[in-house]
């Protein structure tokens, strides 16, 4: 399942996408995210039939990604995002 977290406004689409079919719940993203937006939960709240842990964007951060993810949106010299780089299974992607 592709879980899209983020928003869309006049300047574009800003979404962090977690592919829960690839996520193994290792928690690497939790450790590297400077804004601590990720958490690992034992059960996917959006897919109750799935077994095993999965990373999600924390409930209290969901509506704040505009601000939380902002430091990782440079206008030039764009290195890979820490979360994308840390994810060994390639489950995390972003739309900007």
């Amino acid at each position, binding site marked *: *399942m*592709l879980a*899209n977290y983020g*928003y*869309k406004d006049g300047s574009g689409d800003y979404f962090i996408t977690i592919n829960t079919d690839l996520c193994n719940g290792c928690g690497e993203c939790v450790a590297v995210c400077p804004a601590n937006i990720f958490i690992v939960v034992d059960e996917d709240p*959006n897919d*109750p039939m799935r077994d095993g842990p999965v990373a999600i964007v924390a409930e209290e951060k969901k509506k704040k990604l505009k601000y939380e993810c902002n430091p990782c949106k440079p206008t030039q010299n764009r290195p890979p995002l820490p979360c994308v780089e840390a994810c060994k299974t390639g489950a995390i992607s972003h739309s900007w």
Partner: protein
Amino acid sequence: MQIEMREEKKQEFWRWKESNWKNPDIEWRSGKFITLGIDVGSVSSQAVVMVDGQIFAYSNMRTGSDSPHSARKALDFVLEATDMPEDRVDYCVGTGYGRVNVPMADRTITEIACHARGANFIYGPEVRTVLDVGGQDIKAIQCDEKGRVTNFLMNDKCAAGTGRGMEVFADLLGIAIDEVGERSFQVKEEPPPVSSTCVVYAKSEALGLLRKGWSREKVLAAYCRAMAERIYSLVERLGVKPQLAVTGGLAKNSGVIERLMFMIGLKPMNSKWDAQIAGAIGAALFGYALCQKGKGRKK
């Protein structure tokens, strides 16, 4: 000095009717698993009782300021339609915006999973895209033939383009909420949409249009169109895979749904079930699946 106050009888145009229903063909006594789904939304609450995965009874009510109380009321209202005691329920799943405040729930599941599952039940396995237009947010969901979510997206919490916004407009224009769809088509030609999506601004824009001499129907048509466009901009990102099903309270508003479907180029789907109870149906179905898996707690 004595000031005379005039008694004013205010009609509440936004107020939609609460209802409950029972399936007379199902006997709960012979059921193996009886599951309950309670969907406490921002504007409405629903409770669905399922006997072995079939809808036995449901209720649909307005959510008050107190979520636990609303969940209780919805449950009492559905039980009122049946002669079943509450303790016969094997498993109860809470969902919706107020799901953490459903005291009788054995577990909670997000409304995203529940609406996909519910739409699959209501409209059949050919549904691939589900749009849940609720009281305060819109969720665009893609699912597979089993109703499992494959991709989802949720807008920011905002009344623009949602059910609550439509209630505000019904009240402003003095048109009963269940007539909005029909009345919005009583215009000679389709007016341009109101430019603001924010309900507060759209309301003041509508007042300006009324002052300019627009009929109430024309203003309503302009607002329905603006709402359809806002919903469309959200699904656009996810992409529409046919068939598309709309769930949530706004599914009953033909004024928005027909305009939206025209933009997308698809025909609205029909069902014998009320699309507003999709979330609660999904919750009850998950309860049933969990019972079958042995994960359900048999009381």
